[in-house]
């Protein structure tokens, strides 16, 4: 029976290079979508359907990489993780590092505020939603600054915060859905 393992393989392809983008945290999503379309138009296996096996195989792999790269670069949290991975950080190890107790406590409180029965219209919920969003913005800004200065320790810390905040904000989306 398999058990999820420790550690993860290092990056197989540099997505910034694939999309011919500078290695910077900020990117223009419309420009990225344009690059994605250009690359897929050229390298999708459908473009090689009547060619040899070698071309078809290579196109399938490249097209899969383009899809993965697009997915990772589109999402700021995944992009942050990738930026750390590509300079050799072990994300799994990072996730095991102790997290600031105050930060964790606040996460739990916010989650409870979001989940409280009948909270969908209540004032505490609205505050929690706003705070979840603000915390996300702050952590993204923190990561941007840290990675810009090559401070991997600080960037790693912000990345772990981002993982928690992504879950928290997903909770916002789920709990606000009309039934």
């Amino acid at each position: 029976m398999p058990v999820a393992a420790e550690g993860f393989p290092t990056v197989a392809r540099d997505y910034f290079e694939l999309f011919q983008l500078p290695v910077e945290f900020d990117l223009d999503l419309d420009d990225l979508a344009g690059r994605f379309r250009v690359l897929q138009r050229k390298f999708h296996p459908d473009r090689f359907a009547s060619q040899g096996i070698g071309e078809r195989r290579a196109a399938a792999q490249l097209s899969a990489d383009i899809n993965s790269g697009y997915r990772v670069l589109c999402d700021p949290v995944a992009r942050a993780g990738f930026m750390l991975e590509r300079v050799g950080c072990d994300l799994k190890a990072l996730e095991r590092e102790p997290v600031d107790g105050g930060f964790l406590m606040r996460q739990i409180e916010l989650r409870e505020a979001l989940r409280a029965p009948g909270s969908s219209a209540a004032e505490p919920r609205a505050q929690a939603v706003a705070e979840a969003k603000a915390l996300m913005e702050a952590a993204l800004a923190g990561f941007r600054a840290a990675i810009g200065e090559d401070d991997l320790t600080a960037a790693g810390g912000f990345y772990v915060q981002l993982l928690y905040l992504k879950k928290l904000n997903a909770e916002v989306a789920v709990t606000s859905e009309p039934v």
Partner: protein
Amino acid sequence: MVLLQIAEPGAAPEHTAERKLALGIDLGTTNSLVAYVENGAVVVLRDEEGSACLPSVVHYGAEGVLVGKPAEALALAAPKDTIASAKRYLGRDEAEMGETDYVDLEAGRLAFVTSQGSVTPVEVAAALLQALRERAEAAVSLPISGVVITVPAYFDDAQRLATRQAAELSGLNVLRLLNEPTSAAIAYGLDSREEGVIAVYDLGGGTFDISILRLERGVFEVLATGGDSALGGDDFDKQLVALLTEEGGLGKLDPSQARQLLQKARAAKEALTDANEVTVALDSVVPGTASVTVSRELFNERCAPLVERSLDACRQCLADAGVAGVDQVVLVGGSTRMPIISKVVGEVFGRKPLDSIDPDQVVAMGAARQADLLVGNRDAEDLLLLDVIPLSLGVETYGGLVERIVPRNTTIPVARAQEFTTARDGQTGLVVHVVQGEREQVGDCRSLATFELNGIPPMVAGAARIEVTFRVDADGLLEVAAREATTNAVAHVVVKPAFGLDDDEIAAMLRAGYEHAADDMRARQLTEARVEAEQLIAGIESALAADGDLLDEKERHQLQAAMTQLGAAAEGADIERLREAIEVTGEASATLAARRMDRSIKDALGGVAVAALAGDSEL
């Protein structure tokens, strides 16, 4: 309009001049169709009587096999020998289908018992494909280069594989399996050329699909797809059968009477499309029974739970797609002719549904477009399709839980790896159980395959590192590989359902086919393989001439050796050896192909502003 054909740099330039024939096939539960593109227009092929729909019915009687209308005509007289709606059984096993009186449980897999012996759903589908192939060959003089076959978007891996097997059995080269709603969207998208978000509501005879797509700058991107692979027009017929049985006070019917009643119900359903009420005479089914009048209102009421099931899937799909609304709604499938469907779908999406293309033909038409494009006809529409995987893929992990590796609605092709480790000290083997579905418990998902990885060196629990890689190709078909990182022990499987046909069975069936068709089929296949070998060698030689520097001495030597072998095999008449050599040489050339593609990434994105580039290609 005839355009000058200009080969794209880097693409194989040799064969652009000749026009190739590629077919689009809608292999439906109730009806099947075939279409192709001629002079830029889609032609839906018809039978001698002018009908485009081939009833998806095959009759296996003592006197022979009949397909389509003649088979349908025998449905009442010989219900057991006449297989309809076989698509519902493709890639399924008997446990999933429940009790059916014509299923051969002794065969160890789902098969129908007929006067011609036990027949699998794959063979029934192959017989239908064969009939469509003959229809095309009679109409068009060109040889068929390949086909695009449509499948419900919600088809899982086993169902897709079964469809591919059916094509293989009927001797067709499958260019691509295409999702039915996507195919319909292509037909409409190319028709209207309007960019934006399109929802496709596809209610066929046996399956329901909902897809949401975005068309932007010539790229068709499927944002989300969903549906119910066991919901279709047949279920509406059943509601009507139940209603007629109740109202008419009918008791237990024999198979022939049941078929007759079903035909009555179907006719009544179709009549209710235009009429507000219909009177069904039941005297011919069971003598002495009074006629029953059914109003559209009553019919709608009885079918409301079915309609609601489809709408739930629509709402989920909208949420998955992450769009607030859609610009267009397209109706596909004969069952969408029911007025209630058009009404409620319009309400859910807030748009009046489009139905300008015949809902029975639109899927085959889109498939024909895609086939024309894939076969490389230069004047084909310049459109790229990005589809998604409809159901999540994962493996069984501790406690019967599913560890999801590829979530549903991920754009394909996709390659994803996940690491696992051993649970016990000294564990040397590992069983990987691959499942598909959205539930957390393995028992609630569909089991696709189980394979073993052996030869892991004994280590303490948690020390081994086993990487499981999932690859899903553009057809939505899965390949799984597992590798132990410290020893490189490798297990590699193309996922095959235990209850489908295995390669040996397919080969045996094909051989049986050759015997009937004498040697000419084999001769033709040998010629085709030789042409393929020639093209492969020519392609590699031109690639080497242009970018030979991308390979080192050893790699170049290996590739040359493979090509020499291939050349020798092409001289001989051993088709198996030739196919093997094509495979080996093709594999050997993948490295060069990949590096050439990498080299051209810069050209694709370099220099010109990307936004302009993306827009340019529309010209």
